[in-house]
C-alpha cells in the first residue's frame, strides 16, 4: 500500500542520503520549467512539478488553464517550446512519435468522454493493446475479464460503446487504460458530465488504483467533489479481499495525494488539500466556493 508508510520511507531515504532502489527515488513524472505558447497565447509558463511513485496529483483549474495540455504533453501528443519532461526518470522531451510509443506502453490514459472506439465492442476496446501486441487470445480474454471485474462491468463485455451510459463508457475507458499494468494513469476530467454517484464510482476506482495497485496518477478535474474524495479517503482490503473506503483521520493520514492549481498556464498553488483550503488567494477561494 502506498500510504504514509511508503512515503515516510521515501522522505527518510531522501533526507539521510541512504541509497535506496532507483524505483522508489525516481519520480514517475517530472516537469522542469515547461513552456508552451500558441502564437501569442501562453498555454504553460515555466511549469514545474513532480509526481512521485504511487502518488496522485490532482490538477485543478478553470477551462483553458492548461490542465489537459499537461496530460497531452506527458503522452507526447504536444511538445513543449522549452523545458524538460521526464517519465520514470527518462527525458522524453525530444522523443519523436516512434520513441514515444515505447513510453506510452507504460502509461494509461482515461479520456473525458471515454474515447472508446465506436466500431469495437467493449471486449475489443479493452483488449485493444493486447491485440496490437499479438497476445494469445486466451490470455487476452483472461486479462479483459479481470479488468472489467475491477471496474464492475463484466456483464457489459459484449456490448457496443453506443449501448453504454456515460458512466459505463468512462469505466470501460479506465479498464482499457489499465491493461498491461501501466505504472502511470492519466485522468482527463473523467467525471465531467456525470451524475454524483457515478462520479463517486470513478473516484473510487482512482483511489483503488492509488492505494491498492500503487499506480502514480494525474487527475485533472475542476469538480470539488473529486478533490474531496481523492484527498481525504483511502482504500483498504479486508481479509476476504473486499475493498473498503475510509476517511483519513487519527488512524491514518494521506500523504500520497497532492494538489496543484493552474491559472492561465501558471501553477498558483502546490501542496496538500488542507493547505489549499486555508489559502487566502482570492482566485482559489472563489474557485473552491464557486462564488
Amino acid at each position, binding site marked *: 500500500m502506498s500510504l504514509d508508510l511508503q512515503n515516510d520511507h521515501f522522505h527518510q531515504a531522501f533526507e539521510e542520503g541512504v541509497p535506496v532502489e532507483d524505483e522508489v527515488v525516481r519520480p514517475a513524472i517530472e516537469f522542469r520549467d515547461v513552456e508552451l505558447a500558441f502564437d501569442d497565447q501562453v498555454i504553460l509558463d515555466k511549469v514545474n512539478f513532480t509526481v512521485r511513485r504511487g502518488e496522485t496529483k490532482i490538477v485543478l483549474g478553470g477551462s483553458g488553464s492548461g490542465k489537459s495540455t499537461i496530460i497531452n504533453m506527458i503522452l507526447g*501528443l504536444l511538445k513543449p517550446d522549452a523545458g524538460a519532461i521526464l517519465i520514470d526518470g527518462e527525458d522524453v522531451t525530444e522523443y519523436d512519435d516512434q520513441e514515444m*510509443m515505447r513510453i506510452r506502453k507504460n502509461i494509461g490514459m482515461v479520456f473525458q468522454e471515454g474515447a472508446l472506439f*465506436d466500431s469495437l465492442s467493449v471486449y475489443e476496446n479493452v483488449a485493444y493493446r493486447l491485440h496490437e501486441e499479438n497476445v494469445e487470445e486466451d490470455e487476452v480474454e483472461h486479462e479483459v475479464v479481470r479488468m472489467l471485474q475491477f471496474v464492475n462491468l463484466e456483464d457489459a463485455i459484449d456490448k457496443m460503446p453506443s449501448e453504454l451510459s456515460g458512466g459505463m463508457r468512462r469505466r470501460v475507458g479506465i479498464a482499457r487504460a489499465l491493461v498491461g499494468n501501466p505504472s502511470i494513469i492519466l485522468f482527463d476530467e473523467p467525471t465531467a458530465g456525470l451524475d454524483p454517484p457515478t462520479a463517486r464510482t470513478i473516484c473510487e476506482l482512482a483511489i483503488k488504483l492509488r492505494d491498492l495497485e500503487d499506480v502514480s496518477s494525474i487527475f485533472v478535474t475542476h469538480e470539488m467533489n473529486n478533490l474531496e474524495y481523492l484527498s481525504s479517503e483511502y482504500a483498504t482490503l479486508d481479509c476476504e479481499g473486499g475493498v473498503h473506503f475510509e476517511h483519513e483521520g487519527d488512524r491514518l493520514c494521506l500523504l500520497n495525494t497532492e494538489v496543484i492549481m493552474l491559472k492561465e498556464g501558471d501553477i498558483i498553488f502546490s501542496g496538500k488539500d488542507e493547505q489549499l483550503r486555508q489559502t487566502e488567494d482570492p482566485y482559489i477561494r472563489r474557485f473552491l466556493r464557486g462564488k
Partner: protein
Amino acid sequence: MNSIAKFLSEVQEITFLLWRSIKGLWKGPRYFKDIIVQMDRIGVGSLGIVSLTGFFTGGVLVLQAFPTLEYYGAQSSAGQSVATSLIRELGPVLTALMVAGRVGSAISAELGSMVVSQQMDAMRALGTSPVRKLVTPRIIALLITLPLLTFSADLVGIIGGGLVAQQIYGLDPNLYIQSAKVGIAMTDLIGGMVKPIVFGLIIGLISCYKGLNTTGGTVGVGQSTTSAVVTASVNIIIADFFLSKILQSLFSATIF
C-alpha cells in the same frame, strides 16, 4: 496565412502523410486484416454504383454517337467508339469520381469523427500509430480496388452500349463486339489501369488528410467531408489531363 501559403502547407502535409504511410508498409505491425476489411468496404461496397454508372454511361455514349456515326455511314464503329471512350477516359474518371463521393466522404467522416471524439488520441495513447493503422490500409485498399472497379465499369459500360445499340438502333451484336475488340489497343488498357492507381492515391491521401485534420467538433466533420470530396474530385479531373498527356507522350503512336 494567405491562400498560396495555405495551399503549399497542405501539399507539404499531404506529402508527409504519403511518406509516413509508405513507411508504415516497411515497419511492423502490419494490418493485413484491416486492408482486407477496407477492400471489402471500398471495392465490394462500390461495385453496384460503379457498374450502374458504367452501364448507363456506355448506353448514353451509343445514344449520342450512333446518329452521327450513321450519318457518315460508320455505324459499325459504334463498339470501338464506346470502348475507347470508356477505357481511356470515362471509365477511370467516372469510377474515381463515384468512389471519391462514396468512399472519400466516408473515410474523411470516419477519421474526422475519431479526431473530434479523441479516439485518435486514444489510439496514440495506446501505442498505435493512426497512420499505420488507419491511413495505410485505406490507401492500399484503394490502390488495389480502384483499377478493379474501373475494369468492371468499363466492361459493364461496353455491355450497356451494346444493348442500346442492339435494342434501339438494331445493330448486330457481333458487329459491335468485333468493332470494340479491334478498337482496343494494349496501350489503351495500360493507360486505363494506370489512371485509377493514381486516382486511388489521390482519393486516399486527400480524404485521410482532411479527416485527420478535422477541427471544430461535428460541424468540422461535415466541413472536412465536403472538402475531401470536392478537393479529391477536382484533383482527379486535373490529374486526368496531365496523366493523359504523359501517357500520350509515352505511347506517342496512340492518342490518349
